[in-house]
Every structure is written in structure tokens, then in C-alpha cells.
């Protein structure tokens, strides 16, 4: 009786879940693997062996491939999403970590931590077509919604570099707090958010005037200040709510993107790194580096609803249609 009741309950729950099955790819920094998760069943469907120290991971714009930077092998590997196997590599330059693509999916920009450069790759020809000199330890990479400006953050120089994508020249440098790791534009292009891991803040930058106009600060009762280390940022498409991963604080901050005030903190796994939304924006998945799992956050209720075990030291995540 009890079993039948439970079964019926599950069936109802399954039926109630819309057929929004997406696929999440998680890079496991220590495991040298990529975990594939089905977002309908929230289960791991495959573990792909990749090169050494996989971190930055992103779908190609056409959704056919997943690209993962394997820093210790000095390359970016390309996974075919149909076969879920590695089919190619890209000439990324030494120690690639994070990268971004233009809207057309033709050009890729890679941060090379080891030699203070951003490498430009032609994705069709799979060829390296240029380098841009930036500050010490380039890390965060993003591109403005209009495609005109590439942003790179450098961790020891503590700047966000604004690079003209046509001329590939730096047009502005904005000083932010210590160890900037991740950059995210609002979808309307009105603000650039940059997280500072050691500084413990997120700087809000005016992308036209190139000045810091505000900062998101964090305070968690009972937790020492040094443990709050902002890393990954996720912004809803309507630019109303932002999520900020706080590293060893083991929490994701929910931030009102208009007032820049923290609305609440969601407890996730240990050392939370990066995140991605499901394309329908119903869920946000975040990687927990030390607890070797991924937390699923329900956007509507702003609650953590699920934890999924992945490989060793998960770092990056990307989600798209299967």
C-alpha cells in the first residue's frame, strides 16, 4: 500500500515535471573527467575521460560541441555532444583556464594564465590567429552583448581589461579588488560585474565610462570575512537577479541586480566555484569543488532542491539542449 502510494506519487511528480531535459557537462579539475548529467532525472549519464586539469567548459554556439580547457595539457578539447567523445583539440596557448566565444561562434578568446596573454582562435579553421598582452595571470573572460568589447580579468594585476574586438587593442583598464576571477555582463549591456576572490566583493562597472560605480558586499553571520570568496556569477535573462558563488563560504548569494543588495544566502556544497542556468531558467546548477558534487537550485523558490555526486573536484559547468 505504502509502496503503491509512493509510486503513484512519483508518477505524478514525474508527470508534473515538464519535458525540459537538458544536458549538463561538469569539468572535474582533479578527476581529469567531464561528468554528463541529465537534468530531467538529475542523474549522471556518462563520465568522459579528458586531459589534465579540466576547468573552463562551454557549449559551442551551435550546441554541437562542448569545449573544455585542459590547462596542464596546454590545449582545449572538443567533445561531440552526439557521441559524447573527444573529437578534436584547439591550439589554445599555454595553460588555458577560462574562455569565451563571440555571438556567431566563429572566434574564441582564451585566457592563458602562464604567459599574461589572451589567445584568439578561429573556430572554423581551428587555428590560433592572434595574441593580446594583458595583466598578470589572466582569468575571467566575457564578451559584451553587442560583441564589440571583450573583457579579461587579470588576477595579480587586479584589473578588468576592456579589449576592442575589432582592433584587439586594450581600450581601458579598470582596477578592481584583489584577484578578479569572473566577469559577467548584464544582458542589456548596462553593467559589467566582476568578482574578486580575495577582495571578497563583486565590482559593478559602467562599461561606457569604465569606472566602478558600486560594489556588492557580503556578510554571513558566524562566518569569518576571509572565507567569503566570490567566484562564479550567474545573471537571469531579465537582469533582475544575480547569483554569486562564494567559494569556501559554501554558499551562493542571491543578489537583487538592480539594488546590488544580497537578498539571501543559499547553503550549497563545499567550495562552490561556477554555475550555469538550464536554458528555460528554471534551475541553476553550481559546482562544489571540495564536496565533489553539484547543487541544483530552483530559481522560482530560490531553494536548493538536489545534490548530485560528480567526479573529483568539480570546477566548471555548461548546460544546453541535448
Amino acid at each position, binding site marked *: 500500500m505504502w509502496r503503491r502510494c509512493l509510486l503513484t506519487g512519483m508518477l505524478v511528480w514525474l508527470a508534473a515535471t515538464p519535458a525540459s531535459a537538458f544536458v549538463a557537462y561538469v569539468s572535474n579539475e582533479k578527476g581529469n573527467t567531464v561528468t554528463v548529467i541529465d537534468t530531467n532525472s538529475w542523474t549522471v549519464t556518462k563520465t568522459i575521460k579528458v586531459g589534465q586539469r579540466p576547468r573552463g567548459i562551454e557549449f559551442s554556439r551551435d550546441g554541437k560541441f562542448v569545449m573544455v580547457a585542459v590547462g596542464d595539457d596546454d590545449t582545449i578539447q572538443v567533445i561531440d555532444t552526439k557521441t559524447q567523445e573527444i573529437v578534436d583539440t584547439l591550439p589554445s596557448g599555454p*595553460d588555458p583556464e577560462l574562455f569565451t566565444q563571440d555571438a556567431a561562434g566563429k572566434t574564441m578568446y582564451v585566457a592563458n*594564465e*602562464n604567459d*599574461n596573454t589572451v589567445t584568439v582562435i578561429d573556430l572554423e579553421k581551428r587555428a590560433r590567429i592572434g595574441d593580446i598582452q594583458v*595583466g*598578470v*595571470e589572466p582569468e575571467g573572460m566575457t564578451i559584451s552583448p553587442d560583441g564589440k568589447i571583450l573583457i579579461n580579468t*587579470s*588576477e*595579480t*594585476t*587586479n*584589473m578588468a*581589461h576592456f579589449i576592442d574586438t575589432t582592433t584587439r587593442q*586594450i581600450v581601458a*583598464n579598470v*582596477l578592481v579588488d*584583489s*584577484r578578479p576571477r569572473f566577469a559577467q555582463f548584464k544582458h542589456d549591456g548596462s553593467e559589467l560585474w566582476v568578482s574578486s*576572490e*580575495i*577582495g*571578497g566583493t563583486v565590482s559593478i562597472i559602467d562599461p561606457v565610462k569604465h569606472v566602478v560605480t558600486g560594489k556588492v558586499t557580503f556578510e554571513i553571520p558566524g562566518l*569569518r570575512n*576571509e*572565507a567569503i570568496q566570490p567566484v562564479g556569477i550567474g545573471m537571469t535573462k531579465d537582469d533582475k537577479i544575480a547569483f554569486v558563488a562564494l567559494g*569556501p563560504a559554501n554558499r551562493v548569494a542571491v543578489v537583487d541586480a538592480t539594488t546590488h543588495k544580497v537578498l539571501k544566502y543559499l547553503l550549497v556544497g563545499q567550495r562552490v566555484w561556477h554555475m550555469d542556468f538550464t536554458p528555460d531558467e528554471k534551475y541553476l546548477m553550481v559546482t562544489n569543488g571540495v564536496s565533489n558534487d553539484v547543487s541544483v537550485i530552483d530559481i522560482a523558490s530560490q531553494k536548493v532542491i538536489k545534490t548530485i555526486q560528480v567526479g573529483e573536484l568539480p570546477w566548471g559547468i555548461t548546460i544546453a539542449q541535448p
Partner: protein
Amino acid sequence: MFRWLIGTIALSMMASGALAADPVEIHIGYLGHAGVKSTLSLVQQPADNDGIAGARLAIEDNNTTGKFLNQRFTLDEVKVKDSDDVAKIATDLAAHNDYIITDLPADALLKVADALRDRGTVLLNAGAIDDRLREQDCRGNVIHVAPTRSMLADALGQYLVWKQWKRWLLVSGSHDQDKLYADALRRAATRFGAKIVQERTFEDTGGARRTDSGVTLIQRQMPVFTQQAPAYDVLVAADESEVFANYLPYRTWDPRPVAGSAGLVPTSWDAAHDQWGAVQIQNRFVKLNMRRMTALDMQAWTAARMIGEATSRTNSGDPKKVIAFLKSPDFSIAAFKGTRLTLRDWNLQLRQPILLADGRMVVSVSPQEGFLHQVSELDTLGVDRPETKCKLQ
């Protein structure tokens, strides 16, 4: 003629101003001591440029940032011998440099600090770990980047207690700095609840550190030296003079681990440290200097980066502004230790996590989990505000 010259200068200044303003120059001096200490292990023998190599890398890093802010950093390196008049050499160096990174013994550092006091030159102590420089002998113009003996001893003590190795056999050398380190280890044992079950002294009777038939003799000496000890968990050695500690691992009478000056060693940096982005600075360092990075290299790197960081934050070449910022609560520096490093305002000591390394790997990083503090967990390492004897002036 004279007027014509002035005219030319004015014209050339205008011309260069039209192209790009001349960069703001920030001059940093490095005052080190000549000669390197002899170590028992050949692989631990410091290079001639130990320390300076770290400062040079930081100057490169500062200049990469500086090119975006129109700032240029230079390093002026001087080494002093024991017989030199260190105060005079420092005064000459201070004539061209606003900041001086020092790697000097405590007494020499105090001489320099007092000689430069009225000039406003700030010293960044990268080499001396003596607690007294931060306590009764503290100076308002000296910022301490090197950790203290007590910070190192506490970092080790926390780990040993966490590991439940609470019964220590303390063996110290017969030189002054060995005794100071033994004092710091005793203090750590008391603070964190370890028990020193017995103390022994290893007398330095002289003799060469390297001999062709050395190993046979050492293999006989060390078991005998450590026999008949009361029950203990770990042998803690205080041997900064490099006389005996590295002979102890694998040679103790009882099979016990060794820590302190050999075995598990507390240190500000290790060539094996790769967490928190550290592998990037390790790679940069090896590329520039063709050798691995030591603790002294890291301390000098951090010192020069602190000046770079404060200069970029204040966007100023004015040392007064930069120093005021360095000493303000807003200052912090990232140094690949997983947390921001800040200055203790009561004695200008840089707070920092301490690595515990065994020569091949980083075993742990202190402060250890569970050692709590109301201000900063980093203040569980070393002498804290309520105990300080420092009155800054």
C-alpha cells in the same frame, strides 16, 4: 645660453607630454647580507640570489600592471658584509629609494631602521623572523613580511595537536637562534595543549657539514642520541643553525616522526606549493630564475608586491600616500595562500597562513580547522594583540 637651455627642456617636456606622460617611477631598494648559510642538505643550499630573485619577479609583475597605470618600478640591489657600516650603506640606498626591502639579521635591521627613521623611508623586513623585532624592539618604520618564529612554531603546534601527536620530545641546538626557536615551540605546546615530555640539547662541537665518510658515523650517533626517551609521539627539533636536525629522520631510536627544523617544517613558502593559483607564480619564478622558489624568495616577492599593490590602489608615486595606505585597514595583498593577507596594526606584522612541508610535498596549511579567533583566524598564529609588548613610534 642658459635661458635657451631651459627653453629646450620646456619644449621637450611639452613634446613628451603630448605623446604620453612620463611614467611615475617607483624606486625600491633591496638590502641583503652577503654570503649564504651552510645547510646539512645539499639540495637546501640557498642560491646566491635567494630573496632578491623573488623581488625581481615582483618588479616584473608590478611593471606588467604598471604599464596600464603609467607606473614603472625599479629595484636597486645592495649586499652588505658583516664588517660593513650597514647604517651608512642603507642611508646611501635611501637617497635613491623610497622603500627598502631588507634581508638582515635583527641587530643590523634595527641599526638601519634607526638610521632612516627621520627620512621617512619604510623598511620591509623580508628576512628576520625574530619576535623581538615585532615586540619590545618594534619600530614604526618597519613592516614585517617574514613570519615570526612564534607564528612558525604555532603553525606546527596546531597541526601536531590536530594530529593528536601531543607528546613531544624537544631537541634543541646550542646556538642562540636555536634556543629562541625552542622557546617558541615551548610556548606553542603550552598554548595548544601539547606536552614536552623531555628536552635534550645537541651541542655543536664544530666540524664540517660534509664529509666523505659522514653517513656511517651519523647512523650510529643519532639512534644513541635519541635513546631512552620517555614515551613520545613526535620529535620536535629546534636547529636553525643547521647542525643536526636533518640527520634525525629515519634515525631516531624509537620509530617516531620528526618535525620543526627537519621532517615536517613550518614555512612561509615551499617549491611544492600548488594550491590557490600558486602553480602560476611557481612557473613564472622558474622561468625567470632557472631554479625553484624558496621561502625567502616568496617573502621578498610579497614585500615588493605590497608596494606595487599600494601604489596601484592609491594611483600615486607619493611614498607618503602609499605608506599611509599600506598601514590602513583597507590594505590587503593576495599571495597564493587562499586568503587575503593583512597587517597587524599594533606591530605591522603581515598576517599569513603557514605551510607545513616535508621537502617534497605540502602536508598541510595552518591555521588548522577549529582554532578560532574573534578577529582573524590568522591571529591564532604568533603573538596576539593582548600579549604584545610593542609600542609603535
